[in-house]
């Protein structure tokens, strides 16, 4: 290993997590406040706008369901970028980020599934239908749980980080295949209606609350993610202090 990368390593080992902690302390309140504001506005809009003439009041579930589904995918993307950071740049915060993101992503995915199911009952007459999108989100949920299980099963953070980063990336490469195959397998769901080249087909009446809720959810994700990363750094410091205490005890015993 060259002197250069050693310098980077030293620099990032000492300066980065500490600087990150300081930064986190400063930005977290702002993020939290912004999240609260967007949620307040989003929820107010969600409940005051008109219901859909076909779907009635249940359309309001969309304001939670769709952002949660977006976030479930964005979170995996964040994890994949972090995994790349771990493997390629060996950035010490990258694996903290990936590890912290997994449970949050699982929660958003779970939220998307639950709200989807609640929405599905009045719309399709069943709590669960094996439609393509629900199914692929369910597979994504399983992948999150697998990754969390893997992270918990390994004790050495440095090693588990790189190994689970490999798995995150393999999963990331596979997501399009899974999505494609599940769509081949079955499709009942309505086609994507917001992100289309010819402009949104959704009524602006629904679009505004949806977008505001989406921003709110994204801010919520970053708030939780930064907080979780901070906790993870603290947890690691506690662990290394404990290890050191054990070593010191061993030395004192030898000295006696």
């Amino acid at each position, binding site marked *: 290993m060259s002197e250069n990368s050693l310098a980077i390593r030293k620099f990032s080992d000492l300066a980065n997590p500490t600087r990150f902690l300081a930064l986190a302390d400063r930005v977290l309140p702002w993020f939290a406040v912004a999240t609260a504001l967007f949620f307040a506005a989003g929820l107010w809009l969600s409940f005051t706008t008109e219901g859909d003439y076909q779907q009635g009041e249940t359309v309001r579930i969309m304001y939670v369901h769709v952002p949660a589904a977006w976030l479930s995918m964005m979170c995996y993307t964040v994890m994949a970028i972090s995994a790349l950071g771990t493997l390629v740049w060996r950035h010490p915060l990258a694996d903290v980020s990936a590890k912290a993101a997994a449970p949050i992503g699982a929660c958003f995915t779970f939220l998307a599934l639950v709200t989807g199911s609640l929405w599905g009952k009045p719309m399709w007459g069943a709590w669960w239908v094996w439609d393509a999108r629900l199914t692929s989100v369910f597979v994504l949920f399983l992948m999150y749980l*697998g990754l969390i299980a893997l992270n918990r099963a390994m004790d050495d953070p440095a*090693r588990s980080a790189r*190994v689970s980063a490999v798995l995150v990336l393999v999963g990331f490469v596979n997501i399009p295949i*899974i999505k494609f195959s599940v769509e081949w*397998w079955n499709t009942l769901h309505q086609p994507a209606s917001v992100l289309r080249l010819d402009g949104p087909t959704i009524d602006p009446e629904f679009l505004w609350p949806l977008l505001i809720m989406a921003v709110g959810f994204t801010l919520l994700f970053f708030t939780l993610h930064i907080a979780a990363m901070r906790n993870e750094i603290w947890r690691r410091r506690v662990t290394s202090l404990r290890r050191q205490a054990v070593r010191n005890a061993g030395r004192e015993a030898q000295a006696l």
Partner: protein
Amino acid sequence: MIALFFRDLKLSVRAGGGTMIGVLFFMTVVAVVPFGVGPDLNLLSRIGPAMLWIGALLASLLGLDRLFQAEREDGSLDLLLMQETPLLMTVFVKCAAHWAATGLPLVIASPLLGLFMNMNELAIGATMLTLLAGTPAITFIGAVGAAVAVALPRGGLLVSILVLPLAIPVLIFGVSAVYAAIEDPAPFLPPFMILMAITLFFAVIGPVAAAAALRHSAD
């Protein structure tokens, strides 16, 4: 490389190896199905291909966690990692040997089980062909799980949990190719081609990722 292939083959055929267990598990799983859904021959012949595929999927995951763990326990993994031979090739050959020892017997056993499920010749042939094309993909993607869980004492179950979601596309296209073959309107070739494409894709991505995970899990 050939030496590694034959060594792994020998190991899985000898006592304690996975070949017999895999086939027996496959037969047991498929044999249990009629007890669950009833002895209705029409129903069995309809769900037969799917059951065969699910049985084969589970059976090929069975011995997978030992793929690298056994090597690690006796220290062989260290030597495999040290050689001038690219680790990628070593992993690929180990996967090939594992498939030849556990996947291929499943393919060979599938016609017999197809008869139990009251499938006709065409369905049996199509199932065999798709299993032949699809099971290597499960081995390759499973190698990633095996490499990731190599250092874990109870990695076996975890490997299945990690690998099964990734193996869903293989199952989907395998089964839909079989149904396309027996039900007239749907064309057989597109899903079968996609199945082979997935296998080839995993044959690249699996060894690459497994080699990376093995390199990083050395201690």
